[in-house]
């Protein structure tokens, strides 16, 4: 028991400290929070898309559709599980399992804070890219095992797209990893000295390099960091088969692509894996370019008044959300049918406000900072994903592949070469 509590006083991740029970606890927490985040994403996506298209979205199931994810989950769980007749049963069963496992395994190395990761492998970013590339296999298996030509075409297109954009992602990631070890010269050499420029592949090491060099890598070697970030931001959307690169799973083109023949819980596994993969690649982007868990201006605006001011942000966020809930409560129609929804929304607003109040307590305020800033940045990326879906028309598949091979990869290689040149000059 004392061994168990000993870990709390160490300053490494539980995987590095060898504290197996804490590793299990972290994994369970991350899995639970990721599942809840996926459910919240389904609601957010429908609501935000609806608002972008000047309509309301789900409003019926709970107050403002807040219980819609639960209704969706129940519906998917009680649906009949259909296996097509000529389908290869083993591979048909294994495909969603592979996709979900690889999507969630990437969460092991995501750094929510300097010690808040399950473990800090010294090949962290390589591990994430590798496990993300394993997801492609699940999609291929799904398409083939369905014994039907629409899923086969969809999975072929989807996996071809994923493999192509993995290369572009890799180039962008390598240029970010280069920045951990390059110092640059002249105006580019500010902040990065030989002491704090040790190259590393570990996710926590990359964020600490940004902290020690006093610069987020998106701003380092401007505009190269920005270009690398842009390439990764586009490639990650293509990697997760999201709009505007979602031809393989577009309803009007391929009747839902590789997961056409999957029903009920199996389809919800694919769905969960897609959102989990979105959060994972957004975490890569946040860690590599946007400073991970660092708050804005940790060095320029350092010290006591600024530190305390920034530490109120988590509570402020929850108060804003609670305020929005209360405003929606007041604006509910005065009909007796809406009484339950009104009280429900009011209670939801009170719960959010209570969480905000808990986050005002000083010990909690100090500890929640890293996780909060990381989560806010990833949430901004999720909003970007939904924004892309509501804004851009779909790419045709040959346009998609042309973009990947003829523009993204040369641009990625160019950014890589320029970063290396600028860094060693």
């Amino acid at each position, binding site marked *: 028991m004392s061994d168990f509590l000993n870990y709390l006083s160490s300053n490494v991740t539980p995987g*590095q400290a060898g504290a197996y029970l804490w590793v299990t606890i972290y994994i369970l927490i991350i899995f639970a929070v990721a599942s809840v985040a996926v459910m919240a994403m389904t609601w957010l996506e429908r609501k935000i898309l609806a608002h972008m298209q000047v309509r309301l979205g789900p409003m019926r199931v709970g107050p403002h559709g807040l219980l819609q994810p639960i209704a969706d989950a129940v519906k998917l769980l009680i649906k009949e599980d259909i296996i097509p007749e000529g389908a290869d049963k083993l*591979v048909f069963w294994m495909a969603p399992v592979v996709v979900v496992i690889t999507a969630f395994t990437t969460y092991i190395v995501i750094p929510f804070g300097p010690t808040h990761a399950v473990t800090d492998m010294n090949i962290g970013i390589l591990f994430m890219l*590798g496990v993300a590339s394993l997801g492609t296999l699940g999609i291929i298996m799904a398409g083939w095992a369905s014994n039907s030509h629409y899923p086969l075409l969809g999975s072929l297109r989807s996996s071809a797209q994923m493999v192509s954009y993995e290369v572009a992602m890799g180039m962008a990631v390598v240029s970010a990893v280069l920045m951990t070890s390059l110092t640059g010269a002249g105006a580019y050499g500010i902040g990065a000295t030989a002491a704090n420029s040790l190259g590393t592949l570990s996710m926590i090491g990359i964020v600490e390099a940004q902290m020690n060099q006093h610069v987020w890598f998106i701003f380092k070697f401007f505009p190269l960091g920005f270009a690398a970030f842009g390439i990764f931001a586009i490639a990650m959307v293509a990697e997760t088969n999201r709009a505007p690169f979602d031809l393989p799973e577009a309803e009007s083109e391929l009747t839902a692509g590789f997961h056409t023949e999957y029903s009920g819980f199996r389809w919800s596994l694919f769905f969960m894996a897609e959102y989990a993969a979105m959060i994972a690649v957004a975490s890569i982007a946040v860690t590599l370019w946007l400073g991970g868990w660092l708050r804005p201006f940790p060095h320029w605006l350092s010290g006591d008044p600024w530190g305390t001011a920034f530490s109120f942000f988590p509570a402020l966020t929850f108060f804003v959300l609670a305020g929005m809930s209360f405003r929606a409560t007041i604006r509910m129609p005065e009909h007796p049918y809406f009484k339950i929804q009104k009280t429900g929304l009011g209670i939801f607003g009170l719960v959010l406000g209570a969480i905000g109040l808990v986050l005002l307590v000083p010990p909690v305020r100090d500890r929640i900072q890293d996780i909060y800033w990381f989560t806010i940045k990833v949430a901004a990326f999720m909003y970007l994903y939904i924004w892309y879906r509501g804004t851009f028309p779909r790419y045709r598949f040959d346009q998609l592949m042309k973009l990947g091979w003829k523009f993204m990869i040369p641009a990625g290689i160019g950014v890589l070469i320029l970063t290396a040149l600028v860094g060693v000059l």
Partner: protein
Amino acid sequence: MNPVATPFFFYALAAVAVLSAIAVIMRRNPVHSAIALIFTLLSLAGLYLMLYAPFVAGVQIILYVGGIVVLFLFVIMLINIDRMEREYQFNKQWLVGLLAAAVLGTLFVAVYVKGQAIFPQHAVRFPEQLNTQQVGKMLYVDYLLPFEIASLLLLVAIVGAVVMAKKRI
């Protein structure tokens, strides 16, 4: 952190690798063979991890499993398997194959028994934090010319594949 249950993990990974490799050649359905190959390559990555080479393990997963087996599966999916599965499998060279395997096996056993001097006495343990740096240094400093030649070979292969697949050059 000290390694835990090393013999168990080694035997487990080795068993998975050998059994999956046998499944690769024994399964009638090519997709099943490819999936068994995935298991073999993943267990090899685990064995690399046991040798304190995390970079090699990561690259094995990215390139072999996430790249090469994916391309295998592309090709397998595009061909018609039903007829192939029902065909009668025959092999006219099984005797020669058996003899060659027996000779190779004897060679391995002889090397292991008589040539104990070639194998290192203790497991050489490199610091695993430096695996990436060491592989990079060897590739780009010590063995730069073979590296460039290998990349040229890959370029030739890519160009050849594109030339063969294009309708008009």
